[in-house]
């Protein structure tokens, strides 16, 4: 096996096992621990490992989804950090927890990491919760909701001639179609662009179908450094490039129709260094797929969001990590050789992470 060399760091790191819950609008029968535990159990089983094999654990979640401090602390009860483990938590999507784990595995002697992310959007009013991400002096007091902010971005794209409402509907149509073959998806059906265009506006110019569903869900990944990855799986999904960047928060000070942070992260991750078979883009709103695709320079030969993407299932704090899972699964099963996984955080794509996953040649 010829492990593809990584662009960042010195030690190749691969995704070797994944697990995710089925996304649902409301998972009432499970609290966070019960949501997470089967997923963690499954990822260990998929890797043929136990908690004792893991050198580092990192998770992504946010307290505001549950409305109480330290939600990540109780979630640890699902993971079994005993004997005590090297463990950390980011108040970010699980994709950034993966980034931290990837950094940690650069060190010799740290070979296996568990990464997970979880979130239940069903407990509160997500639009109101997310308004608390905005500048606390000049924006949050007006409680702008995430759909309206996304609509500002979509309109900027339309004004700049980058997309039309029909383009948005075409993306939603394809996402729902792709989701039919994804058992974890929440929104899956066959609807043509023309049918979807009959939808009402949620906030113009965004019609209902351009919005992501509200989802509860959890996801977990096992990362392994070096050749040990081949002990777990025949075709590990090697992370050959990974980078993340942030844009200015004051989105009145930037062009909303572009994503400089994505462009820079994609350049550093080496997206354009070879053909991209598939890309899993964390574009919660349909228009953001067009924006991200342009920002990364992906051409027509790349299949976008074969899982259906966030338009089919979008558990906050796990949505980005699920993009890694969907991309890695397609490397591991041999259906793709080179894939892109992307995650976003913050209002209107403020922060973006891009990774290139490759199978060994």
């Amino acid at each position, binding site marked *: 096996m010829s492990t593809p060399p990584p662009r960042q760091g010195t030690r190749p790191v691969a995704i070797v096992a994944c697990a995710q819950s089925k996304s649902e609008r409301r998972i009432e029968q499970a609290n966070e621990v019960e949501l997470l535990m089967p997923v963690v159990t499954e990822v260990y089983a998929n890797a043929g490992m136990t908690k004792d094999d893991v050198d580092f654990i990192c998770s992504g979640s946010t307290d505001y989804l549950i409305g109480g401090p330290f939600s990540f602390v109780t979630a640890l009860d699902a993971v079994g950090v005993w004997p005590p483990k090297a463990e950390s938590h980011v108040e970010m999507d699980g994709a950034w927890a993966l980034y931290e784990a990837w950094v940690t595995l650069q060190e010799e002697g740290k070979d296996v990491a568990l990464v997970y992310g979880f979130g239940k959007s069903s407990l509160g009013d997500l639009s109101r919760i997310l308004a608390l991400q905005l500048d606390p002096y*000049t924006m949050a007091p007006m409680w702008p909701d995430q759909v309206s902010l996304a609509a500002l971005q979509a309109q900027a794209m339309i004004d700049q001639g980058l997309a039309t409402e029909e383009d948005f509907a075409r993306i939603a149509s394809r996402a729902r179609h792709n989701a039919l073959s994804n058992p974890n998806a929440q929104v899956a059906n066959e609807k043509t662009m023309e049918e979807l265009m009959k939808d009402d506006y949620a*906030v113009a110019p965004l019609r209902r179908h351009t919005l992501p569903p509200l989802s509860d869900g959890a996801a977990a990944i096992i990362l392994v450094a070096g050749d040990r990855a081949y002990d777990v799986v025949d075709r590990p999904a090697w992370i050959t490039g990974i980078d993340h960047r942030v844009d200015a928060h004051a989105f009145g000070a930037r062009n909303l129709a572009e994503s400089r942070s994505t462009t820079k992260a994609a350049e550093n991750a080496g997206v354009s260094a070879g053909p991209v078979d598939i890309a899993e883009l964390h574009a919660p709103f349909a228009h953001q797929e067009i924006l991200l695709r342009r920002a990364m320079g992906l051409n027509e030969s790349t299949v976008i969001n074969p899982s259906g993407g966030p338009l089919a299932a979008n558990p906050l704090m796990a949505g980005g990590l699920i993009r890694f899972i969907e991309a890695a699964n397609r490397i591991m099963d041999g259906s793709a050789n080179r894939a892109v996984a992307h995650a976003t955080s913050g209002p209107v794509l403020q922060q973006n992470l891009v990774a290139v996953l490759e199978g060994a040649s």
Partner: protein
Amino acid sequence: MADPTEIYTSPHVLEYPYARSTGPIIGAFLTALRDGKIVGVKGSKGRVIVPPTEYDPDTAEETSGIVDVGPGGVIETWAWVDTPRFDAPLDTPFAWALIRLDGADTAMLHVVAAPTSDVVVTGTRVTAEFRPAAERVGSMHDLRCFVLEGK
């Protein structure tokens, strides 16, 4: 006996009256709003940032020099809300908009009141409509909304 399969759920309210110190720059902005004006601050290379921040968001350099902007400006992009949420600034249909005020180099998020959606388009000129002086306290809500210029 209680239903042996019932999953208990409960309302939970998280509520606190946060009080934020503004510092001098945001303080100057809120003071101006209370006085029925809008101000920005000069950032790197002299560009005028509205709402003002202590730093230029692109360079992190310290800003200095409060300048008057508006009250007129141009819609840079918009989003039409037919059914306002309970927490929206206006309870009748309106548009969220990024508005570049006259004299500013960045756009500010606020709302535009208009009779119908078709009159709100990118490039439309709007002007600030303040609440009556007695109701203004030094917050974004002192600026009730923007309205179409000359209407």
